[in-house]
Each structure stands twice: as structure tokens, then as C-alpha cells.
């Protein structure tokens, strides 16, 4: 049971303010993912929640109780570290039971809980081993075991999967999702990997330069990004952004077609047009909004990524479902799906999408 709330939280190192205006309410049982490029402050925010990093301003509460001055040990939160942080001089079993050992739990209780957790995580045979004798995935499991054995009111994960190889990462991602379903505890998860964010989160918090850019469900972020940063950060390959000029009926591409958005865009100066690679249709060379030449073609099996060069709009990424025959250098026409256009003002704020614009 943990409802967390951050109110106007700031973080400064000396006179340098690195985070500000952090306002976030995390509901009980919610899986929140903090995501952003490196250096955006996501780990700092997590460490402030953990109590490992002092909060410079504002207030952080758990279930209504102020936590700013509470020591990490008294917050009743477990944390899984990117480095796993297993105690090298203790066996797997003692690692997992360490929190109970510190709390003074009787030996039998400890052994029983360790055995239970080891069973859940498939570590039964490794309980007497030392961390150095385990593989990366096994260490990760031990780190998770150490967290769940305490039955804390919330879990924090600091990029827990970034040291694992790709296939193991997917496996552990599923395991974390299962863990959340089983325990229904509040979880806060930090990652720079948007796939992890999109697959795990109930809600995603996108951070950049120490500020929250947007909070929302994965689909919300994908469909209605609040600004250009979020739009380009979420989704892979990255959203294409083209300069455009507002027009009576919509927007006009430089030296190109006018896109009818059914409404005049009332903004001064230039705007930017965002379109995801999967929202561009490949049509005959003479048709469509933009003429282009295929430059690099990536066959992924389920999809084909085509990096194209255009005459006036620079390079664009196009993603076509399925496997299509395309050779580099081939001319093609591109049609931008009107219903999936995003518009951004000069400062990057989203002006909405076509359906919203038309309304």
C-alpha cells in the first residue's frame, strides 16, 4: 500500500538547480516508468524517492506522511540497482535474507522466506553460491529476490535490465511484469529504453533536462505527445519532423504540397510537422505529397524501414508493414496520413493532431 506524491520537488547541487517543478502523484499499485535521455534526472528522481539523495525543495509524501527527512531504511521501500549491488561476501541466500537479518528476524523465518523467494525466482539450487559464481541473469534475479523478500510497500528499479543481453532482457521484462501483477505493489521503474517503458508502464513520465515533459499512458504518449521532445523520444524509429508554413486550409511543406487539415492554423511564423515513420504510405513515384528516393532499406521481416532522401524535406524514415521489395536508389512517392499528423509550434509545444485540429 503506497500512494506517493511529489509536490514542487526540486534538486540542486550547490547553486546549480538540476531538477524543478516535479509534481507527480503515483497511485497505489501503479507501475510508473520514468524515462528520458541520459542526464535527464530520472535516476536522481528515483534516488530522491528512495532517500539516497536529499530533496532540495518541495515535499515528497508516502500515504500522506512527509518523507523528505526520513532515512532510506525507514521508508519501507525496496530498490533494485542497475549494478545489482549484491553483497559479494555473502551467499545468495544471505543476500536475499539480509534485510530480515538486519531487522532481527529469527533464523528459521529467514530461511523459510529465502526458500520461498528462491523458489519463485528459480534460484533454489543457487542459494549457497556466491554472487561471483552467478551469471548476469541470475544476479538480476537475486537482486529481485532481495527486494521482494521484504514485502515492502513500494519497489524502485534503477535501469535493472540494462546490463543484460537482449534476449535475457525480454525474459526479465516479462518477469517484472508478472511480479507486478502478482504483488500489485507500487513500482517506480527508471529506464532509458522506451520499449521497456511502453511495455511495462501503467503510466510513463517523460523527463528531460530535469523537468517532467509529460505524464501519461503509453498510448497517450504515442498518440498525443505534449511536445516535440516527447514525440521524438517515444516511438521507434523516431518521428520525422519537417518544417512547414501555416496556410488557409492547413499547412504547406517547403516547395511542396499543401496538406489540407480542414482548418486554418492560427499561429505566427513557421510550425513543424511531425509524422511517424509508420504513418507514411509509399505510393507511386509520381503521386503522394513528397517525392523521394530510397537510400537505405532495412528488412526486419515484419516491417521494412526505408530511409529516404527527398529534394526539399531532407531525409525521412518510412516504415512499411510487411516485407516489400525495394532497392536503394528507387524513386518513390510518399503520402502522409492526414489523420496521423502532429503539429508543433516553434517552441516545440504540440498544437494537436488532425482529428483534434479539425474539431
Amino acid at each position, binding site marked *: 500500500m503506497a500512494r506517493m506524491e511529489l509536490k514542487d520537488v526540486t534538486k540542486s547541487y550547490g547553486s546549480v538547480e538540476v531538477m524543478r517543478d516535479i509534481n507527480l502523484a503515483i497511485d497505489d499499485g501503479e507501475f510508473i516508468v520514468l524515462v528520458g535521455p541520459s542526464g535527464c534526472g530520472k535516476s536522481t528522481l528515483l534516488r530522491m524517492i528512495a532517500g539516497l539523495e536529499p530533496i532540495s525543495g518541495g515535499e515528497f509524501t508516502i500515504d500522506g506522511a512527509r518523507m523528505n527527512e526520513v532515512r532510506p*531504511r525507514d521508508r519501507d521501500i525496496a530498490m533494485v540497482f542497475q549494478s545489482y549491488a549484491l*553483497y*559479494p561476501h555473502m551467499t545468495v541466500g544471505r543476500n536475499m535474507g539480509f534485510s530480515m537479518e538486519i531487522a532481527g528476524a529469527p533464523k528459521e523465518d529467514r530461511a523459510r522466506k529465502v526458500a520461498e523467494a528462491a523458489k519463485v525466482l528459480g534460484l533454489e539450487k543457487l542459494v549457497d553460491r556466491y554472487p561471483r559464481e552467478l551469471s548476469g541473469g541470475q544476479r538480476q534475479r537475486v537482486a529481485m529476490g532481495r527486494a521482494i523478500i521484504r514485502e515492502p510497500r513500494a519497489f524502485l528499479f534503477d535501469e535493472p535490465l540494462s546490463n543484460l543481453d537482449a534476449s535475457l532482457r525480454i525474459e526479465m521484462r516479462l518477469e517484472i511484469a508478472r511480479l507486478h501483477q502478482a504483488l500489485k505493489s507500487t513500482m517506480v521503474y527508471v529506464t532509458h529504453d522506451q520499449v521497456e517503458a511502453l511495455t511495462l508502464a501503467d503510466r510513463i513520465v517523460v523527463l528531460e533536462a530535469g523537468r517532467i515533459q509529460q505524464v501519461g499512458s503509453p498510448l497517450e504518449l504515442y498518440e498525443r505527445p505534449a511536445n516535440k521532445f516527447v514525440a521524438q523520444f517515444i516511438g521507434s524509429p523516431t518521428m520525422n519532423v519537417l518544417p512547414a508554413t501555416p496556410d488557409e486550409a492547413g499547412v504547406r511543406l517547403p516547395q511542396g504540397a499543401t496538406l489540407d487539415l480542414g482548418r486554418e492554423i492560427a499561429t505566427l511564423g513557421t510550425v513543424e510537422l511531425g509524422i511517424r515513420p509508420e504513418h507514411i504510405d509509399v505510393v507511386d513515384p509520381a503521386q503522394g505529397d513528397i517525392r523521394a528516393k530510397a537510400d537505405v532499406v532495412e528488412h526486419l521481416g515484419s516491417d521494412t524501414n526505408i530511409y529516404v532522401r527527398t529534394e526539399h524535406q531532407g531525409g525521412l524514415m518510412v516504415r512499411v508493414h510487411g516485407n516489400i521489395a525495394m532497392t536503394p536508389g528507387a524513386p518513390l512517392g510518399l503520402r502522409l496520413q492526414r489523420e496521423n499528423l502532429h503539429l508543433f509550434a516553434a517552441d516545440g509545444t504540440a498544437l494537436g493532431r488532425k482529428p483534434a485540429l479539425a474539431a
Partner: protein
Amino acid sequence: MSTLTQPSALRTTGKYAAIGFYLLFALFPIYWLVKIALTPDALIYSEGTRMIPSALTLENFAAVLQSDFLSYFANSLVVSLGAAAGTTLVAAGAGYCFSRFRFAGKKVIIALLLITQMFPLLMIIAPIYKIVASLGLLNSLVSLIVVYTAFNIPFATFLMQSFFDGIPEDLEEAAMMDGCTRFQALRKVVFPLTLPGLGATLGFVFTAAWSELLFALMLISKNDTMTFPVGLLTFVSKFSVDWGQMMAAGTLALIPSCLFFIFIQRYLVQGLTSGAVKG
């Protein structure tokens, strides 16, 4: 791809020859020390340069053990252990702070510690003598412990700091998340992992204090508080040098150092932290 180059016989021989030569170079003085200690007095000059003496005796050792040597030995042990323990304790605390905390004046303190290492000891002997004398600590072992501790702390601090730097901070933080106070995390997680560092520091200071002559000579003049290096000089009299007994005493003096290193060498073995973090 996996054709391993067989080490050629020549290379192997060369390698062992180099190691052998080094060992010969390093161990020969010790051999000579033991040899002279075991040579009867009468033969020392007559067959001085023979590699193996024609007769062996334990007389020198017996004589040494009946002299004041045992008291020198005990004094040295007290001084060395005291200095080693004191230095390690302070250096561990200071090293931990330098490694983990950011505080005002940290750079200045580190710079000062470094500066203290730049003076030749000879320069500060007189002031130290003056200080110790005015404290009334001349001819006491305490003065030596204090002086040795003070001189070894800077280097030992840097040594300990590098050991603490090698222990990921994540481990302490994990322990604190697991319910430890900072001190508990230090005791239960950091301390066991720092044993190699503590061992190395103890060993380093112990040997330094064990063989220190200059300050011991200056600050101690009474027979009952002499440390072993000073005591050795008593074998040099005005008219002769009692080589046999001097070497026997020297041989015996090697024993504690050897024992100490045998005791701590397992803590000196590194690699204990492997497996803690990503491997």
C-alpha cells in the same frame, strides 16, 4: 583461429632465469645474514667469504637471547603494533570520508596531506625532538608510536581511500535500503570487503615502524625503552663489532615481519569484490 602459440623453450628458460636472478639478488643478503649468524666467532674472519662455513653453531643465538635483545624485541613489537593499529584506524576513517563524502576544505586537506610527504625527515627531526622533549615524552615508547602514526597517516589514508573507491557505493546504498544505518552498512558490508586494504595498510605501517632507526635513535636513549634497530647498534662497541650476535639478532628480527605477512597475506589477495556488480 585458436592456434595458441606454444611458448618457446627459450622464452620459458629466459623467464625463469630472470625470476631466478631476481630472487638470488633479493635473497642473498638474507642468506648472508643467516650464514654469519650461524658461523662460530672464530671462523668469521678466517673464512669470511666462503659460501658455506665449515662449522655451524647456535651460540650466537643463545648469547643474543640472554642479552637485552628480548626487551628490545618487545619494545619494537609494542611500537610497531601500536603505530600500525593507530594509523590504520585513522587512515580508514579518513580514507572513507575522502572516498564517500563531499565537504568544504576536502581539497585543501588532501593537499596538506601530500605536502607533509614532501619534506625530508631529517629536516623535521629537531622540531620533533623539541616537541617530544617539552611534552616530557623522551625515552618513552608512546612518543615513537605517536610519531610513527603521524608520519604514516597521509600515505595510509591515500591507500585506504583507493580501497574504498574500489568498493561500489551501490553496495552501501543497497544495504541502507535493506534497513541498515550508514554505520551498519559500513560494518556489515564495507568492512568485510575492505579487509585486504586494512591488511595491506597494517602490514605497510608495521614494517615501516619495525625497521625505523632515525627517530628511535633520536628520541630513545635508555636501554629499557630501546627498540630493536637501536638495540642492534649496541653490538657495535668502541673496539669491535660482534658480527655473529648482531646477525643472529637480525635473523630473529625477521621473524615477526614474516609471521605478520603470513597472517595478513590472505587478506591481501584481491578480487573479493568481483561479482558484486556487473561482471
